């Protein structure tokens, strides 16, 4: 699969001229172009030779993580509709056989919740893989702890994030962080940093998963917050601010000093803020629903379309902690699943219209599933294993792994069948082209969730 960045022969692709023409490259930045410009060249496809800043790493592969926060009820998402045990345990909130979108008849028959038309249609196109019964040993039922475990890929839930460590591993030694200070000066004068772009999280806080030892993620709720806000106080501050921020590292004298590092980062910040804002301001190629998740994914879609070289994006949808009044075919949980499903569907229609769908793998997970039996409040309490979804044409389509037994339980909870770290291993090895052993601090056999390329 040889996917280039946006093909300029397509009318909908961004071109370099469009960016420069939009006036986002400041005069000062053009003189001493920041490393950001050197490395991304604003999304122009590059010839293979010498273009990749990290030899052997497929730079055009992107991972989008969709976190479903609060503990999504896996049993009402991928429903084992033919299992009596399911119906008996969930009299008040069950989904009936004639309501589900049937997926698979082998093993335990399962179907998607009726609100998930959007994902069902992706499934039918072969763009969706459902991995059943994903979890880990000795499950923790605290939201925080279990989320930390998923984020760190460490069963004690401590340490740096798994994707942060991936970026660390790609990023190399000191001085080649986000701002790309080259390890060695390039005789040609260009930036030769082996650094990759930091991950981008849409939201108030950047998730632990993206925090590495060396590189921290960029996080913003809207691009309007990823900028200097001083000029909001008075417009007369804007021009002098840009004079000061755009001086570039040369103003610091010694290129190895912390002052030079800060000046370089300040200039990079200017340019990346402008780039992100201008990317996100564009009208998407398809209509997205108005839900929060859909809006986040439309921003990600726009950033990808603009040719940004960011490889990891992170978005979240919360509210899955349905202890009471969860509903069945309709209701609270159904609404959440509908948001999720419609947003993912719009995202992949957008990516397809861009010609970028082959570059983008999406993983969605939740910190845990919920207990098999409903509780007395028409809801479900914190449980264990749950399905993980993967989207994109590179996924092994269909249902992967068996459905966990509803009768052979561990204290009322499902027993996991697939360790989530084997899914991570597959993504790292087969999609991001990284060695998973060091990043996951152990050997995990990649789960069969991606197509052989």
């Amino acid at each position, binding site marked *: 699969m040889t996917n280039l960045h946006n093909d300029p022969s397509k009318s909908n692709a961004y071109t370099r001229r469009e960016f420069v023409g939009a006036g986002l490259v400041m005069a000062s930045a053009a003189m001493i172009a920041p490393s950001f410009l050197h490395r991304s060249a604003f999304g122009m496809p590059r010839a293979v030779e010498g273009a990749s800043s990290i030899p052997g790493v497929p730079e055009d592969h992107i991972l989008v993580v969709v976190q479903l926060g609060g503990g999504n009820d896996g049993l009402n998402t991928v429903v084992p509709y033919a299992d009596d045990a399911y119906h008996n345990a969930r009299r008040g909130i069950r989904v009936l056989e004639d309501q589900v979108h049937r997926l698979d008849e082998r093993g335990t028959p399962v179907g998607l919740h009726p609100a998930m038309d959007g994902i069902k249609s992706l499934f039918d196109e072969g763009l969706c893989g459902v991995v059943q019964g994903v979890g880990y040993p000795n499950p923790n039922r605290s939201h925080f702890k279990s989320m930390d475990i998923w984020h760190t890929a460490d069963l004690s839930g401590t340490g740096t994030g798994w994707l942060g460590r991936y970026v660390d591993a790609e990023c190399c030694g000191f001085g080649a962080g986000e*701002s790309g200070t080259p390890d060695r000066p390039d005789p040609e004068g260009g930036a030769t940093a082996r650094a990759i772009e930091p991950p981008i999280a849409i939201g108030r806080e950047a998730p632990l998963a993206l925090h590495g030892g060396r590189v921290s993620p960029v996080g913003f709720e809207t691009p309007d917050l990823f900028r200097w806000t001083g000029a909001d106080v008075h417009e007369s501050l804007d021009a002098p601010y840009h004079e*000061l921020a755009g001086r570039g590292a040369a103003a610091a004298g010694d290129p190895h000093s912390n002052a030079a590092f800060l000046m370089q980062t300040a200039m990079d910040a200017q340019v990346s803020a402008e780039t992100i804002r201008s990317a996100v301001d564009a009208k998407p190629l398809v209509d997205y629903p108005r839900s929060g998740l859909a809006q986040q994914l439309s921003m990600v879609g726009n950033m990808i379309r603009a040719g940004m070289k960011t490889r990891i994006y992170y978005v979240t949808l919360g509210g899955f902690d349905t202890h009471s009044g969860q509903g069945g075919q309709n209701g609270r949980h159904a609404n959440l699943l509908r948001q999720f499903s419609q947003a993912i569907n719009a995202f992949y229609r957008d990516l397809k219209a861009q010609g970028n769908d082959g570059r983008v793998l999406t993983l969605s997970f939740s910190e845990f599933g919920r207990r098999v039996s409903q509780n007395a409040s028409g809801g479900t309490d914190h449980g264990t294993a749950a399905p993980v979804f993967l989207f994109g044409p590179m996924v092994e389509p269909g249902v992967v792994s068996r459905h966990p037994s509803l009768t052979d339980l561990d204290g009322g909870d499902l027993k996991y069948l697939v360790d989530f770290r084997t899914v991570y291993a597959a993504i790292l090895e087969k999609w991001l082209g990284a060695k998973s052993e060091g990043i996951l601090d152990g050997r995990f056999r990649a789960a069969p969730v991606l197509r052989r390329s």
Partner: protein
Amino acid sequence: MPGAQSHSQISSADEVGPIPSSLDAIDALNFGPREANHLLLRAGFGGTPRQIETLAEWGPERAVDHLLNLDGITYDPPEPDAFDKNIMRPNTPAEQNEYQRARRQRDEDALARFRAERQNRQRADRRQMGDIQRWWLTRMIETPKPLEEKMTLFWHGLLATSYRTIENSYHMFQQNQLYRTHAVGSYADLLRAIIRDPAMLAYLDNNDSSKRRPNENLARELMELFSLGVGAYTERDIKEGARALTGYTFEDDRFVFKADNHDDGPKSILSLRGKLDGDGFVSAILAQPACARYIAARLYDFFARHITDGSTPIDRDLDRFLDRLAHSLRKSNYEVKPVLRELFLSRHFYHPDVMRQRIKSPAELVVGAVRTLLTPVRDLGVLAQGMELMGQSLFHPPSVKGWDGGRTWINTSTLFVRQNLLNYMLTGALPNGYDAASSRDAYDPTPLIDGLKRDDPNAAANPEAVARSLLGFTVGAEPDAAVTALRHFASEHGSRVNDKTITGMLVLVTAMPEYQLC
């Protein structure tokens, strides 16, 4: 040194020699406002022009002793140093019995009540953790003993423990008080106390350790991160050390030693042999020369220059300097105060390679803004949230390694947060989208130019003179580009000097990359 040429604007190159490798003290004649400012920035969180002037007049010895003699100054903290210790208390025996019964009889309603009760308590405890965080931030902002809080922060980073893991705010509070008690005291005593600290015992799983299956977590980090550094011990030392620490656990919020769970057999740790317990283990560590050297390097890293991130390579001269600091630490029996005194009085500490070269931690940046620029505090919650976005949430270090600091604080995202939070503190403006509303507390920046007014009333009305004065005070230099930019800004406002234009200038100055250095 590659750093030397960049200081040409600070002091002419010919009067600056290479950075000394000795602990020779600075000559009182060379201790002026610039040096006094540096001392305040590093041993505290910076000071006002007035405080700087005072310390400069006092001279190095008196200034350093004033900062170090914590006992000589009394401080009544704003709120009592007390929090609710019962939120996460263990179940009473009666509750425990009821829980066991509910489990046996599969009494789902009772179990659900237990779960709900536990979740309520956890919510209350997280709220209290927020209170404690704001309490510490207030202390840092207010205290007349800034070094006490700075050293508490140092120990918090060295002997790192995170609330995220232990989920017990009172234990975190107790540990914080422990660090404050030992602020500039004996590191040896602190090390003996830390193996009895409930927060640490929980964080590194020593409460799960048993005679039959010793947990090695605490033993490993005690040597690797808290005292010796990687490579100064063997795997065998870890195994034996873990045995020595068996039985060290806690009940509720008190340390208990469980003799029946302690392995009292003979052990061999580092160069010590015998029936060693936890204190024996610590003694074995303290006897190693690597220990003093490691702690000296960590103190240097925190107060002088970053060495852990590789931005300052340890060359021969620095290596000798660190050896001398380490020697001094051993000579004082691990008392920290005399070592800091030597460091803060050394010529080395005031060399241009050290001054204005360090990237401020989020705590230094935020607390420093109030203490140097005299900004209103406005909303402690916003300040704490800002620090979290910058990567330093107090009581939540990212791992047992603490915060890496240095350049890892900075990326494009955190740089905007730093600039924007300063803008908020100066003007009260928050961009749309934040939870908190903008703040209307008035800011009066005029005390910052009191000295200028006193020396030359005309200069205090001249935007360029004011710009130079503010730049010198905040970033320690007056780069032409900055003077020009500030003058342009003032000219947009009729070149008047008033609280609004001074505030505007400060908004610009604090957005300069150089402002991130101290």
